[in-house]
């Protein structure tokens, strides 16, 4: 009965996401009637797990998602605290959140234009006589550790986490900090023992979103990442667009792995926050 108001949303989710997941799952098992294949088999997964580039992609994806979430959380929280301390009004908050509506695709191209070896910054250092050509400028993009991808993700996601944390900070009862101070807690102790535990839910929920997004982000690694290793979504895209149509099963298998990772994460989050059974 309590679920009734949510029914329309649940139906849409179940049909669109569940249906897509089911179809993707079927195709990852080699189901392709247009190619005359209707038998279900695990070949795509077997090939995938035997492929070294898959494990390299898994490693890079995990690294990029973890590092970008961590850095965005640290910077986001720091900015939120600064903004709150400064008693920043709407205008500053607006400026802080300005990168939010920029699509990742555009942000990636901007990153490219700005910090590639022949980008705008490189031209400035050249004009200033600091470098003598593109080869002197640090190679931040297309590198094997995903530095360029990290830069873009952190730049885009810091305000997202920051604004969420800021909202939680504003709701915070200022008397808690005052009580802690009267009890002799220093600035650092108050941050760690009072503020952080109280903004933890906001930090965690926005962090989970950033992590899940980074995990499945395609355009950022496609534009700023190295040819190899690449991330799982790019690997899936490459397999999906292979002229050999039989590799489509492999593409869907990679997508299922990404979906499983994201699903496991959210499940873990729901369990950890104890919201599981209580709706």
């Amino acid at each position: 009965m309590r679920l009734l108001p949510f029914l329309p949303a649940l139906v849409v989710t179940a049909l669109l996401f569940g249906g897509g997941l089911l179809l993707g799952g079927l195709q990852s098992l080699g189901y392709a009637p247009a190619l005359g294949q209707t038998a279900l088999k695990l070949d795509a997964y077997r090939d995938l797990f035997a492929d070294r580039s898959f494990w390299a992609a898994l490693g890079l994806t995990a690294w990029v998602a973890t590092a970008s979430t961590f850095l965005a959380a640290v910077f986001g929280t720091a900015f939120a605290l600064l903004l709150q301390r400064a008693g920043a009004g709407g205008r500053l908050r607006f400026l802080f959140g300005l990168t939010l509506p920029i699509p990742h695709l555009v942000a990636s191209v901007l990153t490219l234009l700005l910090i590639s070896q022949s980008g705008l910054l490189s031209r400035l250092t050249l004009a200033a006589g600091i470098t003598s050509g593109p080869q002197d400028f640090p190679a931040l993009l297309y590198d094997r550790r995903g530095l360029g991808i990290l830069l873009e993700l952190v730049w885009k996601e810091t305000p997202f986490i920051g604004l969420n944390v800021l909202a939680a900070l504003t709701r915070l009862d200022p008397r808690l900090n005052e009580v802690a101070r009267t009890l002799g807690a220093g600035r650092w102790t108050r941050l760690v023992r009072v503020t952080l535990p109280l903004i933890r839910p906001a930090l965690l929920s926005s962090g989970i979103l950033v992590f899940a997004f980074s995990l499945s982000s395609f355009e950022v690694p496609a534009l700023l990442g190295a040819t190899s290793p690449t991330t799982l979504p790019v690997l899936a895209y490459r397999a999906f667009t292979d002229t050999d149509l039989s590799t489509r099963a492999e593409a869907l298998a990679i997508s299922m792995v990404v979906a499983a990772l994201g699903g496991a994460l959210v499940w873990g989050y729901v369990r950890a926050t104890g919201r599981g059974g209580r709706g």
Partner: protein
Amino acid sequence: MKRILILSALLTATSTSAQSASAQSWTSIQKEAQGQTVNFYMWGGSDDINKYVDTVVAPAAKKLGVTLRRVPVSDTVQAVNKVLGEKQAGKNRGGSVDMIWINGENFKTASQARLLLTGWSESLPNAKYVNWKSPAVRNDFGFPVNGAESPWGSSQWQYVYDSSRVKEADLPRSFKELATWTGAHPGRFTFPAPPNFSGNRFLRQAMFELAGGQSQFVGAYRPELWARTAPKLWTYLRAIQPNLWRGGQTFPADVPNLYSLFANGEIDFAFVQNIAGIAAEVKSGVLPTTARVFIFDAGTVTDTHYVAIPYNSAHSAGAKVVANLMLTPELQLAKLSGNLWGDGLGIDPARVGPEFQKQVKATLKVGPYTLDPALLSSKAFSDVDAQYDKNVQDGFKKEILK
């Protein structure tokens, strides 16, 4: 008596209709095409090519009552995938893709998955200008065209260098010399990573030279020839890899990326496949005015590119009208001009007439940006069975991108 009359009337009716079947059906195709919007899926990575389609082909199609809608894709396989997806979903009519710019491996896969309309291209009225007897037209990467593709143009591989950075005398003229050059100039050369079309083609040409020539690859795929050649190709690539741009640790994704690296001075060479060379690219500012074209001594790959119509196209009549339009001498000439695109002809000038042959000569302005067509055709060889292409792509992933 009456019955005989009717019978004879029927007979004459059928015989006349059979006689004019092709002409009649073309008229009916034209009629059916009226008001149709043709969704033309094509690689959209070149502004020059896009402009040719938007400013020359589309307005001409409009005059014939057909709206041409260009749908850009970053790789032709996306269009093939879309048709395949529709086929899988059981959408056998009213498909969303009406025409695809295609050749080579994509054509082979699309044909094998029965995604294309067959047996239409040779009966287009303008097919009379096409040299359908030539194996370079009849076969696409060694795979029979079978009336499923209509030629649009032809291309030949050329290399691009910047005369302000590299002296003509120092140019590498073979893959062997290229290896020496990269050794002396580390970080100044790269190529788009396969499965990019140009990247594949670059590596296949290296394969030809390392195996001792292209001629042995002509004809059906030979596994033993591949087995013999592949190790040489990977050894060669591993040898030059550390001297490539960014130490060969990463590669540009496509030709536009290659051009921007070249124009920004990060690398010293690029590729082009237009018969008019880089005339269009220099004119539109993509490449610097100091850029020049050259070819390797052993020659370079030439090929035909086509348009195809998916089996489930909702506007196949309109697509046929556009395919036919693309073959008109006037549009072919506009395409050849380095003012726009500079793409080679899809038709045979001799079949059009001496006047047209003269116009072709006048349109190709041989100079710093365009090589002499006689030189190009004397140094041309065809591309080979698509299986080699596939092997090069897979091998590159396994052997080089580790």
